[in-house]
């Protein structure tokens, strides 16, 4: 075990994967000598050479298409999109190409050895274009897998799984936690299964469900509720596509109540999908309507970011309302 922050855990996962797989390539804007604007790819060029870790020209659609090509050839491609806000020029390549490569060819070809890593989320005074959480767009795309770790241990284990999973994966990294989240991380190689949620706190009165950076707020809300004698079960979804219906449904069947929180905007957010499914699965166990706490349906602001974000107090209020329903 070693103490690492989330960024170091990602760097360590990339290093571990590159050491184990000679065909693995890391590419993206500024990822070479500089190691990426957040330094997630630090020292990889030094260690594995310029051919395997390099700066690309400044074009996200190019990066995505290039990575798809390498993956189609059978190499392992891990592409960094500098900010999730800048993934949209690559949308066509990801949604129409990567996601459909296997299906449209009748499995003659696939781009399974492909990962897009990208920092997402607010709380860093980044305003409209350095704060977005675009996961829902990609969860609406069959053929992709979508992961969002919330701590260093998860980040390494999930990233290693993503790289080795035989399907294209989008890996959203909570940049607010890059340095803020620290923890023990095994130095050796390990994987965390995709599609499995983690019950991070057992409780009996209500289930709180979140992912990524939002987990920090979920824990704080559960702590505050505990002071009032409310017992929260907290679940970290980790994997959004596919997502672990069973674990969430089991919990809600037990507690009868569910609060889902995400930073992404409310309308069309992934919380709506979960709410619909859990209503179907747990209809007779539900004691109150499933609540959603999310970003307002506006672009991400700079001024009043604090008010905008779905913080622990908003989660707390939602859980109290659910209990008092």
């Amino acid at each position, binding site marked *: 075990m070693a103490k690492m922050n989330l960024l170091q855990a990602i760097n360590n996962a990339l290093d571990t994967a590159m050491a184990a797989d000679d065909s693995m390539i890391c590419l993206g804007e500024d990822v070479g000598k500089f190691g990426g604007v957040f330094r997630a790819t630090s020292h990889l060029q030094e260690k594995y050479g310029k051919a395997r870790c390099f700066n690309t020209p400044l074009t996200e659609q190019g990066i995505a298409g290039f990575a798809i090509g390498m993956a189609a050839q059978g190499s392992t491609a891990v592409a960094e999109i500098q900010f999730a806000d800048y993934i949209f020029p690559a949308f066509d390549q990801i949604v129409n190409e990567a996601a459909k490569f296997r299906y449209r060819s009748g499995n003659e070809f696939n781009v399974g050895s492909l990962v897009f890593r990208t920092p997402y989320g607010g709380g860093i005074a980044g305003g409209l274009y350095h704060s977005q959480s675009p996961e829902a767009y990609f969860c609406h795309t069959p053929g992709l897998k979508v992961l969002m770790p919330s701590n260093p241990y998860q980040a390494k284990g999930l990233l290693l799984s993503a790289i080795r999973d035989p399907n294209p994966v989008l890996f959203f990294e909570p940049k607010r936690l890059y340095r803020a989240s620290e923890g023990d991380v095994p130095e050796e190689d390990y994987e965390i299964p995709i599609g499995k949620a983690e019950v991070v706190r057992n409780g009996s009165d209500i289930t709180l469900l979140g992912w990524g950076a939002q987990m920090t707020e979920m824990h704080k809300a559960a702590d505050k509720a505990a002071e009032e004698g409310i017992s929260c079960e907290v679940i970290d979804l980790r994997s959004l596509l596919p997502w672990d219906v069973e674990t969430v449904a089991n919990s809600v069947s037990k507690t009868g109540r569910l609060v889902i929180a995400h930073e992404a905007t409310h309308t069309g957010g992934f919380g709506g999908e979960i709410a619909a499914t859990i209503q179907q699965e747990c209809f007779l166990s539900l004691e109150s309507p499933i609540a959603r706490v999310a970003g307002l349906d506006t*672009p991400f602001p700079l001024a009043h970011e604090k008010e905008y974000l779905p913080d622990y107090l908003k989660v707390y209020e939602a859980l109290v309302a659910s209990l008092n329903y």
Partner: protein
Amino acid sequence: MTSASDVKPNLMHKAQFIEGHDLPIPTLSILNADGSIQAGAEAPEMDHETAIKLYRNMVYIRVLDERMISAQRQGRLSFYLTCAGEEAAVTGSAAAFSMNDMIMGQYREQAAIRWRGFTTEQFMNQLLSNEDDLGKGRQMPVHYGSNELNFMTISSPLGTQIPQAAGYAYAQKLQGNQACTLCYFGEGAASEGDFHAGLNMAAVLNCPVVFVCRNNGYAISTPAEEQFKGDGIAPRGVGYGIKTIRVDGNDILAVYTASIEARRIALENNEPVLVETMSYRLGAHSTSDDPSGYRSKDEEDKWREKDPIERMQNWLQAKGWWNGEEEKAILEGYRKEVLDALKRVEKKPMPSIDELITDVYDTPPAHLQKQYAELKEHIAKYPENYPVAGGAKHG
């Protein structure tokens, strides 16, 4: 000539390939470093007043940038980004256009909006995201914009303004505005798909747009050698059938001369023009960046010697239009003006929390009003946790 149905194709009968660098692109250069005029060159027609105005614009931006960098270090701003090294490329081009021409920039063109009259107070309002910021405090520092000054609000996603500028110019032409669009972008942004889409459409649709590519050698840490294999950006303009010129971006007379001519061509012929200004980003990419990890001090020093402001100052002094006293006076004046404004503006409140839901659409739809009402209720319950919006204290 270029279409498959051409009646007179240009044939050859041996396979010969054109080299990537076969197209010679010369660089327009007028001013020597010492302020003298290059042999065979001619200074543009520029009266005393215009020359001084250009010079003062560059000095102002240098001072603003220096002061704002230190303000950022003191924690008074969240973020900043300088134009240092490219003051001539931006001032010299913007000055060649008229107020009713639209400017669409990337983010390093504060010298252009200043040229049009953006005040120190307006800069500070945007940088501090306060209630007087024209952008209502919604964007990160340096994302300026002003309808009055015909300066389109900056957007962070790179390259997006390039096809927009072509469309804007096309509409200007159709409306008979007698105006064109000036569009800035970096050599890094020119790798985006939008660059290629924009230049091609501008050419095909005969749009009166002048593209100014600021080639400053870097896109954050990525040097130009890792950005493109060709000879810079200029040959691409030629490839799209666009009149193209490359200029020494540290030579304000060259930039100005080329830009005056570019605007004339765009407006008279209804066609796009590409200007590539060769310069160097003297500072870090932004306050979030540290260039010591990817380039040498030596390299920076070499470019510091080619400072565009000094070069123009030498020219002005040689002409007897400027002296050390005047230099000292404007430096002191600008420093004071900027710091005074900063102090004053720091006292202004943030935009009202009501602005959270305005301008998403022309009017806030019902679902957004409901979300906002719930938010207000929540804030009222926990005013101490939302100090600014809750009114507990000044933020």
